[in-house]
């Protein structure tokens, strides 16, 4: 699964619709102090389901909406879309991941009654909240043979916040709940304070953390 592009509009200092494509392996973002580089990081955290305004450097979640400047009036909403390539992966890889997830037990027989439509929010979260963590991962990868449990080559995740406080969350254009977005990325290593986003000034957080906090980061990778 590969990150394809990021689109933001009305998010923090990005008043106008702006797109970042991720076509090459190492992408640098550069520019003077205060121009919006870390705001791009906040946008990625936010669209992946960040719930804490403080963790986005704001006082309240409404602070992510472009608040106006000397040159512009405030925006009516903030919108961010993150697009992933989600190809079908080889069958052997799926089996290997399954074996790793379940300690070698084959769940094939159980999964024949897997939900037909993995995209509908109720069945997605239903399958993900089925008691055992490993069983759900098995269901996810078997249903679609893709890293994200959505049966599509491209997955667009969108989050919107309106100035009146109303929120919208979409996966490939379908409205879902915030928790569906968070669950979508469960166990992928991204989102949810995992190890994939190192914020400015936070690189040695893992060294300064207490032993239990460090354990949690490693459990996310397990």
């Amino acid at each position, binding site marked *: 699964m590969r990150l394809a592009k990021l689109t933001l509009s009305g998010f923090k*200092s990005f008043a106008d619709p702006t797109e970042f494509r991720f076509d090459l392996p190492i*992408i*640098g973002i550069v520019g003077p102090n205060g121009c919006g580089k870390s705001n791009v990081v906040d946008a990625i955290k936010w669209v992946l389901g960040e719930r804490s305004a403080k963790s986005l450097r704001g006082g309240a979640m409404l602070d992510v909406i472009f608040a106006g400047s000397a040159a512009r009036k405030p925006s009516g909403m903030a919108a961010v879309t993150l697009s992933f390539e989600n190809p079908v992966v080889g069958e052997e890889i799926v089996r290997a991941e399954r074996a790793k997830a379940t300690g070698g037990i084959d769940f094939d027989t159980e999964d024949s009654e897997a939900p037909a439509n993995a995209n509908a929010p109720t069945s997605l979260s239903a399958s993900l909240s089925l008691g055992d963590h490993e069983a759900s991962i098995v269901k996810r990868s078997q249903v679609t043979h893709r890293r994200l449990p959505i049966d599509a080559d491209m997955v667009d995740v969108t989050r919107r916040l309106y100035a009146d406080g109303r929120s919208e969350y979409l996966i490939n254009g379908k409205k879902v709940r915030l928790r569906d977005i968070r669950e979508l990325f469960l166990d992928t*290593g991204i989102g949810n304070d995992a190890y994939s986003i*190192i914020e400015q000034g936070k690189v040695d957080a*893992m060294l300064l953390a207490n032993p239990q906090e460090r*354990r949690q980061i490693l*459990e996310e990778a397990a």
Partner: protein
Amino acid sequence: SRSRFEETFKTVRENFAGHDGMFRRLFGGGSADLFLLPMDAGPRAGEIDWLESGVEIRAKPPGKEPRVINQLSGGEKTMTAVALLMAIFQSKPSPFCVLDEVDAALDEANVERFCAALKQFLDRSHFIVITHHKRTMQSCDMLYGVTMPQRGVSKRVAVKFEEVGSDGRLSKAATE
């Protein structure tokens, strides 16, 4: 589950602290360790509990004998943290990794080693790297500039390495 954490832990420890692990690669030597702390209470007090024990780090740059990890310098802490992050990444790469000015505390020699280490993960993940360091910019395959031609409003521009001025500002050519 216990066995999955145990397996992951051992893999990460080898990637981080092993003889060819990330720590020795980023420091050009020295040694490090990742270990579980014995429980201090409960039925397994004094023993390691794979389901409950906390994780501790020891880091020894070449020729040094630090007693606690906090004694390390700013740059040494950054290199140790990056080594651990990459060790986790090797065991379970996520589709992308965002690094916001992680090179802020590094001298030029360490920026060099950091960039070399980045290059080896290319086949599996995108790295999105925010930086003010010229050397780090040189290691990127492409650069996006972010500027504010209109006060308070961010704008994205594509940038060639030569267009980044020594004052960190993007040249006029870049902002068109």
